[in-house]
């Protein structure tokens, strides 16, 4: 019932419309692959800009304070969105459309893709640790141990799979130093992010649960995308405009939904 009610919300309808539009575009460019790079390079920055803009609407009403951990999470997520948006601009406009280069890796865009992880992980971790401290008494020792071990276990397993896929993409060739550093950072940051996400799902509580949930879902989509990207790269199957990019695009739309919920909260 609650879901049906939300679906009547114009912003939720708009977000669903965006997801459907993205799916249609990706079906089209996979039927006509000669358009794939140009079309995905046109669409990507436009979608990545949405969470940045949506938060701007309520920026004056959300006060930032180190004591208010919720505001720390929101602002850090927004900083992450800005950095990701800059990364998309560089990848799509500079490399794809200006330089005409498909799948540039490693590139200057990776500095921003990796850089965005830091505020995103920090923002989530700060708020989730705060939530944990608040509800600590509600969790039994067994629940806590199970939560922590499953979070770390998930991070280690996904990190290991990601690393194996990344190494496999070089097919026994020497990995250049810059790519090696970048690969380690991507794997490490995704693993840490997953630990934070799983722990977040365990401690999620309160009025702001939907906002945190949306941020966690968005980050989870990014991790699934990253691991799928590494898998496709390993087997030489990735290209600009691959359907797996939909996960990345949807993660931006989910981020924007979270910022919309923030706007509703502070209106």
């Amino acid at each position, binding site marked *: 019932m609650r879901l049906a009610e939300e679906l009547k*919300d*114009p*912003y*939720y*309808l*708009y977000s669903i419309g*965006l997801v459907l539009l993205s799916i249609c575009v990706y079906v089209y460019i996979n039927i*006509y*692959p*000669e*358009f794939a790079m*140009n079309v995905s*390079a*046109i*669409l990507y*920055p*436009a*979608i990545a*800009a*949405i969470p940045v*803009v*949506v938060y701007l*609407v309520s920026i004056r009403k959300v006060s930032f304070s*180190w004591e208010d951990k919720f505001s*720390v999470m929101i602002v850090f997520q927004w900083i992450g969105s800005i950095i990701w948006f800059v990364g998309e601009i560089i990848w*799509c*406009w500079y490399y794809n*459309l*200006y*330089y*005409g*280069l*498909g*799948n*540039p*890796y*490693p*590139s*200057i865009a*990776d*500095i921003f893709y*990796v*850089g965005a992880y*830091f505020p995103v992980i*920090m923002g989530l971790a*700060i708020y989730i640790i705060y939530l944990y401290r608040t509800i600590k008494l509600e969790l039994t020792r067994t629940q806590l141990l199970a939560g922590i071990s499953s979070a770390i276990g998930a991070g280690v397993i996904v990190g290991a799979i990601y690393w194996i896929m990344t190494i496999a993409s070089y097919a026994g060739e020497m990995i*250049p*130093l*810059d790519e090696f*550093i*970048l690969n380690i*950072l991507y794997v490490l940051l995704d693993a840490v992010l997953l630990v934070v996400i799983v722990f977040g799902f365990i401690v999620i509580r309160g009025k702001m649960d939907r906002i945190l949930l949306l941020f966690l879902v968005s980050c989870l989509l990014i991790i699934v995308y990253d691991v799928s990207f590494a898998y496709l790269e390993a087997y030489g199957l990735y290209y600009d405009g691959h359907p797996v990019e939909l996960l990345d695009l949807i993660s931006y739309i989910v981020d*924007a939904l979270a910022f*919309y919920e923030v*706007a*509703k909260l502070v*209106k």
Partner: protein
Amino acid sequence: MKPKKFIWISMIMILIFLGIQMGVLSQEEVWFNGLEVGAYYRWSVSGGAISMISISVDDMYVEEDYTLYYLTYRDSSRPDGVPLEVNLTWEEDVMLLLENVNISLPNFAIYLWWNASLLEYAKENRTAMEYYNISSIEYRDIMYGFSPRKTIVVQLNDAEILVDMGTGVALYAVIGEVSLSLVETNMIWRHAILLSIILLVILCVLSIVSLRVGIRRRGERK
């Protein structure tokens, strides 16, 4: 650890990482990037026996150590088109794609498609430049429609060719008495960046409008 301290340490780590990155960034090889199946190029030609050339990429066949491309070549004297076959192996460097086709083409036509990666290498290597009879190679930014494009200007003894870095095809060229320009392709979108900016603005405006409507309606329901 206090959040403030944690953030400062993380920021320092990011800066160290950026420093390392800026020093070691490299690019992947470009090769003949415009050789996508379905790609289509048409040049208008003046000063020669023919007035138009077009090439379309029909199919490709990938093997472990070589790739076979099947193209169709058309010009004003062969409007029905002739099939071309190009074999690109990993072992040897190929500078001009159409030098390796299985039929003979007009002399100037071989300069229509370059290996942009090899051109970049030759720019830094005098011996390579002499090997390919190139007198100079320079980068140049041009506006192709509303899209800025990175190009390379290649000077030969009696020719000047403007090569698109992304696809490797000649955008403009003067070869002896013949001059040609790329007039149609589905691989370079003349207004791509502009389209992206317009789409970005439209989606942002729609986001703000639907957000405001959503908040207002919620307020009314309450």
